[in-house]
């Protein structure tokens, strides 16, 4: 066997092995999200703090930032301050809405978490995690941005910190909020 053949075989084997490794043990963070550029799921549920009903219907035609979190999630604590900062930055924009989805949590613990770390935007209960599956959530924290037409434009798995925060605010939210395209009627995906 020539040296070239040996090297070719080695490279092919290495490429196959890395593909299998990525497929079997790869970080889901690097898997292309299938829901981006598709209609966002329709959702409704009670508010964590007040118990009042919340639904996607009331946010129709707005740019919605949806953040899945839980009181037992350590990375959620890391990003919480940034979420409050982000809301402060965009809250005066008439077309911006931010919604936390409390994922698989005990409501008293979730309320205590919000009291301790601060709460400035509404949070919806998803105790059984059914909505999380509708959104294709792998784990918390996960953040989605839905445009005014009801299409998911961005997904991030992991905490909103450092460059992720900058990218989210400058490259995702700001362009979407300055987009003059009028909202589409009847947007949203039923499940």
């Amino acid at each position: 066997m020539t040296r070239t053949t040996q090297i070719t075989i080695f490279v092919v084997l290495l490429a196959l092995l890395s593909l299998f490794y990525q497929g079997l043990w790869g970080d889901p963070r690097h898997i292309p999200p299938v829901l981006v550029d598709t209609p966002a799921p329709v959702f409704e549920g009670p508010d964590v703090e007040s118990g009042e009903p919340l639904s996607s219907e009331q946010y129709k035609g707005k740019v919605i930032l949806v953040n899945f979190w839980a009181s037992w999630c350590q990375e959620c604590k890391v990003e919480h301050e940034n979420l409050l900062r982000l809301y402060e930055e965009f809250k005066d924009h008439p077309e911006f809405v931010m919604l936390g989805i409390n994922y698989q949590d005990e409501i008293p613990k979730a309320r205590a978490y919000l009291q301790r770390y601060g709460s400035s935007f509404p949070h919806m209960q998803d105790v059984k995690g059914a909505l999380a599956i509708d959104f294709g959530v792998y784990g918390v924290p996960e953040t989605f941005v839905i445009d005014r037409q009801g299409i998911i434009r961005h997904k991030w798995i992991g905490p909103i910190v450092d460059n992720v925060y900058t990218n989210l605010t400058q490259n995702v939210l700001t362009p979407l909020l300055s987009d003059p395209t009028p909202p589409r009627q009847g947007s949203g995906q039923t499940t």
Partner: protein
Amino acid sequence: MFRLVPILIILCFVFPTAGLAEVVDETEIDQQVREIAKTLRCTVCQTENIWESGAPLAHQMREAVRERVRQGQSAEEIRAYFHSRYGDYIMMEPPKQGVNWLIWVAPFLLLFGGGILLWREVKGWVTRTPAPQPPPALDETSRRRIERELHQDKLE
């Protein structure tokens, strides 16, 4: 009576799960949930399906499957729903399309390629190895000596 105690202890070690066994009354819905759940991959585990996984997300997914089975959805519809949310990653058997073909074909290609390489290598060894040389002819002195010694052996 006390003579049975060691036997019972030994039996406990031999059949440790016997004492924990319970009668499982599996309904038709349970059966369908199990069959579908075994084809869906737990997205937060490593190579485990949602039926066998103990992760909370897998538990939720099993419940979502159960809910949809109760609603009368077919196995294909339920799998399509999960596929629409998580993509190919959720399928224990990735769909046979695009780059996924590699997963199905690569093991056979590797086996075939490996077989050819092995055959070529073995053939090369056979070609390169020289045929064994015949032993040198026995000279007359040595032949006589051997005959003489053999003859002596017979006489003894």
